[in-house]
């Protein structure tokens, strides 16, 4: 199965790959994710919101860097 999909941002803000600066990233390229697994955080209005995988797959690439400014609907993670 090599069909590629993306997980898109549900809101604008700042993207983080780790739950906490001291913690390892939620997921790395090559990890498999299930629906509902967190893949990152978006910070907006002084709160952090978990970005969850909306379908299962293997993380093929991150399309944004840690701490990048993102807009709503921007593709963040590529799954295959």
């Amino acid at each position, binding site marked *: 199965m090599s069909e590629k999909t993306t997980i898109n*941002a*549900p*809101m*604008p*803000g*700042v993207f983080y790959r780790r739950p906490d600066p001291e913690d390892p990233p939620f997921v790395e390229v090559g990890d498999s994710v299930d629906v509902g697994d967190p893949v990152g955080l978006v*910070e*907006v*209005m*002084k*709160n952090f*919101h978990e970005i969850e995988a909306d379908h299962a797959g293997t993380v093929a690439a991150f399309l944004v860097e840690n701490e990048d*400014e993102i*807009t*709503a*609907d921007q593709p963040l993670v590529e799954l295959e």
Partner: protein
Amino acid sequence: MIEIEAGGVASTVQDDGRTGHYHIGVPPSGAMDSYAHALANHLVGNEESAATIEMTYQGITATFTEDAVIAVTGANMSPTIEGEPIGTWESVAVEAGDELDMGFATSGARAYLAVAGGLDVPEVMDSRSTYTLVGIGGHEGRGLEAGDELPVGATPTERPAVGATVPDEYVPEYADEETVRVVLGMNDHRLTAESRAELCSAEWTVTPEADRVGYRLDGPDVEFEERDQPFGAGTDPSNVVDLGYPVGSIQVPQKPIVLMQDAVTGGGYATVGTVISADRERLAQRQTHDSVYFEEVDVDTALDARETRAERLDAARAAVE
């Protein structure tokens, strides 16, 4: 009754504000975009003072337990009823059991959901507006969450027909509204000449922290003239002896923060200008990372703009059909 299934990022019940208590430190709260709030209410036959749901960046998912007439205005969040897209700035009939599902804001930051009859949450200090910092008003003083149930008031007998819309010419293009007008003062004299000029020429960007309390902006460093701080003022050059903050005032701890509907009412930071009332609702529709420019105007211009804005709202109401 409206049953909330998903609350979005920051959705609160708001009306036209909790006025009359500013002197005891209670900010007005209320809809950040009072134009969109007023027209949502008008479309369903409500008074402007009726409570709506304000949704920021991402909308709610909710089910109506009874037949209702609703209107969604403000930022475009692609609302659907039972999976079918519905018009915005339009009066829409929904049936008992229908699910409203809103997406994320593609243009603007804040959308408003009005229901004929208004959201009948208890009044606190004469208002249904939510003030989350203190936890009063709205639904339990907080943002909406899955499982919340909101009562709806009695449907007004006189209201625009279902399908009535606000004509396009009265629907703001939020993406284009990057300039907001300011009246300088009270403390702009404390800025260096360079910073004073830069305030109204620089490109500012909305930071992710910007919310109902304040719109924090990023841009060039703002410098104050050095001085011996007077008795009662803090040690930082941006500190002054405590003063009242007008709603819309721009304080500069380091970078500018425009005080919005839920802001503290006074304190010890220099306020170098005030966003005029007519433009505050336009600033409230700027998204994080969007640009903002300040344009200096005098008080007469600000008052004219307030009048023009009121006339535009009246004309928009009159044009609804």
